[in-house]
Every structure is written in structure tokens, then in C-alpha cells.
């Protein structure tokens, strides 16, 4: 007689047996997509923080016919312009040894010979709150140092941003489509349940049950199945995320971010079963309320 049990004998029909698996699959994909989205945000944030407020100047190496002190003169002229420009907070000429370190992963040890012509690079720090007029600065630099090239990384960042946004959109579309499939499955299961248990629903109606009472029977069952499937998906997703994260860490790739999730990120992932259960519950509720009006 406990009020917690259900008046409709759902456990006697097998129409909903596959639903937890489907919802589990949905939560699994949603968890992976969510983690991907969080990782993409981390990548963007890291690159953005690393590159924002920076400008890299590249001065081509002198021609073999040119005098060696021409190189120093061009660097000095560029540094002079930079230090006299408002909004430039610092400028450092990259040490050839540091440049070698950057190039070793690409060209290999010993590939860098003394006479390999490398450009000079100047890392310029800009004041993010009051940056200089980059076009004007570039014009002045080009006049003073012919052949100088500048890169504010914005084009690079924009392309990366576009790429990561595309990945996030694809992930969201996947979750949406799987979610839609789960919703349709819940609608199907609920309609089948209404058909199978019609005699019980008629009795409930005849003794004074409101549509809401009948809907509650179905929505509680859908919530239970949704939660069960959701936890199943979560249990499968967590090891997958940990495994992929470990492989990221082991790859030692400096461009790839560390996939370690924050407690807030894990909380968001852990909420997915509840979200799936609530979606299943609400779908069942609306299906029952809509169908009962036509049925009885």
C-alpha cells in the first residue's frame, strides 16, 4: 500500500527493456561530447592567453653579400621604434640558442648548422588594455627595416577558433540527434505502455484518477529507466575519458592540452544521467497527457 509503488504493472511488459541501453548510449556520447567541448575551451583559452597581447616580428637574414653589422643595425632600428611606441611594453630579441631549441623537434639534432640562414625574431609585448595602432606600427617598421614581417597571431587564432567551434557544433549536433532518438524511443515506449496497460488506465480513470495521476505513473517509470540508463552511460564514459586523458598526457605533445577535468567539469559530467532521466520523464509525461485526451 506504499504510495511509492506504481499502479501500472510496467514490470510485466518488456517494451521498455531497451530504453536504459539507449539512454545509456546517449549519456555516453553526451559525456564524451561534453568533455571534448570542455577540452576545446581549454585549448582556446590556453592559446588565447598565450598569444593575446603579443606580436612577433621577423627580420629576414642578411644576404651573403651584405655586411654582417647590417643585421645588428636592423635589429637596433626595430627595437628603437618599438621602445618609442606607446602601448608596447616590451621587446625581446630571441636568442639563437632558444630558436635552435624550438626548431630541433622539427629539423632534428645537428640539422642546424652555423651557416643556416635563420631570420631574427623579436617577441613584442603589447599593453592589452591600450594596444598600439598595429597598422601604423607595421608601416613605420617596414619603412625603417625593409623586409620585416609581423604576425599578431590573430589570423591563426581566428582559424583555430573557427575549427574548435566547428568541432563543438558537430559534438552538439551528435548529442542532439542521439537525444532526439532517445526522446522518440521514450514516446514509442510510452505509447506502447498506454496501449498494453489500457485496461488498468481505464480502471484508474473510472475510480477518479486525473490525467496527471496516470501521467505520474508513466513519468516515474521513465525517470527510473532514464536514471538507470544514464548511470550505465556514465560508468562507461568515465573510464573512456580517463583513458583518453592519459594518452593525451603520454603523447607529450606541447600543442595538446592537459585533459585533467576540474571538479566543476566532473560535476557537469556527473549531472548527465539526471538530465537524461528528466528528459525521459518529461517526454513520458507530455506523451501520456496528449494521448489520454485522444484515448479516453
Amino acid at each position, binding site marked *: *500500500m506504499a*504510495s511509492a509503488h506504481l*499502479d501500472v*504493472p510496467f514490470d*510485466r511488459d518488456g517494451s521498455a527493456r531497451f530504453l536504459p541501453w539507449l539512454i545509456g548510449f546517449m549519456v555516453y556520447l553526451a559525456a564524451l561530447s561534453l568533455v571534448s567541448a570542455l577540452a576545446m575551451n581549454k585549448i582556446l583559452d590556453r592559446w588565447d592567453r598565450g598569444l593575446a597581447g603579443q606580436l612577433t616580428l621577423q627580420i629576414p637574414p642578411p644576404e651573403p653579400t651584405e655586411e654582417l653589422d647590417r643585421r645588428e643595425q636592423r635589429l637596433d632600428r626595430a627595437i628603437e621604434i618599438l621602445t618609442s611606441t606607446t602601448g608596447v611594453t616590451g621587446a625581446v630579441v630571441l636568442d639563437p640558442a632558444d630558436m635552435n631549441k624550438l626548431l630541433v623537434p622539427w629539423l632534428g639534432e645537428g640539422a642546424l648548422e652555423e651557416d643556416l640562414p635563420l631570420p631574427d625574431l623579436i617577441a613584442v609585448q603589447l599593453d592589452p588594455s591600450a594596444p598600439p595602432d598595429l597598422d601604423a606600427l607595421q608601416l613605420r617598421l617596414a619603412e625603417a627595416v625593409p623586409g620585416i614581417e609581423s604576425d599578431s597571431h590573430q589570423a591563426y587564432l581566428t582559424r583555430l577558433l573557427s575549427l574548435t567551434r566547428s568541432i563543438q557544433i558537430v559534438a552538439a549536433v551528435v548529442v542532439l540527434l542521439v537525444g532526439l532518438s532517445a526522446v522518440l524511443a521514450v514516446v514509442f515506449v510510452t505509447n506502447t505502455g498506454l496501449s498494453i496497460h489500457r*485496461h*488498468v488506465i*481505464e*480502471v*484508474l*480513470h*473510472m*475510480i*477518479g*484518477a*486525473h*490525467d496527471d*495521476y496516470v501521467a505520474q505513473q508513466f513519468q516515474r517509470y521513465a525517470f527510473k529507466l532514464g536514471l538507470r540508463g544514464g548511470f550505465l552511460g556514465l560508468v562507461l564514459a568515465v573510464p573512456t575519458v580517463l583513458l583518453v586523458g592519459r594518452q593525451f598526457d603520454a603523447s607529450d605533445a606541447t600543442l595538446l592540452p592537459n585533459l585533467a577535468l576540474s571538479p566543476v567539469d566532473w560535476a557537469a559530467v556527473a549531472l548527465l544521467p539526471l538530465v537524461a532521466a528528466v528528459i525521459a520523464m518529461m517526454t513520458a509525461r507530455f506523451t501520456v497527457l496528449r494521448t489520454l*485526451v485522444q484515448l479516453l
Partner: protein
Amino acid sequence: MVRFEDAGFRYDSGPFVFQDATFHLEPGSFHFVLGPSGAGKSSLLKLMYLALSPTLGRVSLFGRSVSELSRNELANMRRRIGVIFQDFRLLDHLSAMENVALPLRVSGQHDERVQQHVIELLAWVGLAEQLQALPPTLSGGEQQRVAIARAVIGRPSLLIADEPTGNVDDRIAVRLLYLFEELNKMGTTVVIATHNEGLAARFAQPILRLQDGQVRYVAPGYRRSFSLARGSGS
């Protein structure tokens, strides 16, 4: 309590089960609905317990036309009606106690007093030892008593029974009808459909007779029936 005004009913586009039914059952009255099998007794009762709506005319319960009620208002009105179905319609997966408590549960009553009341009622119908029994494990007579207990647990103003004596011998049938008379004396309006004319004749109660698609009223003590096309039935 129950008022039919020129009411008629048919399933979909089939022939009319009955037409021009006009009668009024006063609160606290006791009526038999008689007629041969297929005459439309169950359909008439279904209109009274709000399982169907009239195709023609007007049916009013408790002073309100049922056609004008919302779904929630219909449900609230059904809570004032106890129904004993011909096939009992017990829920097989619920115990006798849970079946009887069902009308109280759907109306939101869950407390301990309710449970005690259910136990007392089942004891009253002689099922004190079968509280936890599932309907399929009970005999037909026991199932019927569970159905009766479920119908009266909510102290309904109107009690409707569709062939309640169909599955029991005459001795039990008479006892059942005395039980309904007792409930009627406590103020419950009772309507009982039966094809057992002899049984109904043993009780001096008015009769609604369904024949040839017409509802006729037979006053207590009268052997001849007359049409109630425009008159009052009590």
C-alpha cells in the same frame, strides 16, 4: 442526483442503443435496471458512471450537465461514484488491500487511518484473511467482494453495480442485494443492473426497464410498465 433528458446513445455510427430516455433518480433512491441481454443496460450505466457521453440529449449528475465538465471535473465527479463492474476489473498485480485502497490513493489519501479503514472494510466483506492475496488467487465470489469494497471505500454518493449477481448463486445474490439496501439506507443512491427479474422482484424497488431502445419506468409494486418519455422516475 441522476437526470436523463431526451438522452440517446449509439456507438460511433451504429444503431441507437436507446433513445429519448428521460428520468430522474432522486438522491437516496434505489433502482434496478432490468432488460434482456444486449438491451443496453451496461451502456446506460456507463453514461451514469461517466465512461461514455450521450449522443443525444442531456445527462446531468449532481446537478451538473456532464457534457459541460472538464476532464478534471469529470474525474472529481467519478470520485463520488462507486462502480462495481460486471467483470470486477480488479488490478491483478495489486493485493486485495491495494485494490480496495486504490480510489483513496488516486484522490491523494495515504495516511494510516486509510489503511485501517481498508482493513476494516475487507473484514466487513469477509476477507480479513485475504488482505495480501492477489485477485487471480481469489475465487469469483471473493473477487466480487473486493470489487464491492473498492466501490464503497470512498463513501460514494452514487453506487452503480453492473450485474453484481451474475456470478453467484441466488442465496449469495440476495445477501448482496441486502448489503446494497443497507448502503442505500445510509444515504447512498443505488443503481443495479441485472437480467435476473425474479431477484429484483423480491425487493420493492422501482425499476428502469430497457426494451426495444426505450427506457421505461416501473414503480414499486406495479407489474405493468409505462413509458417515462417526459415524466419523473421517482
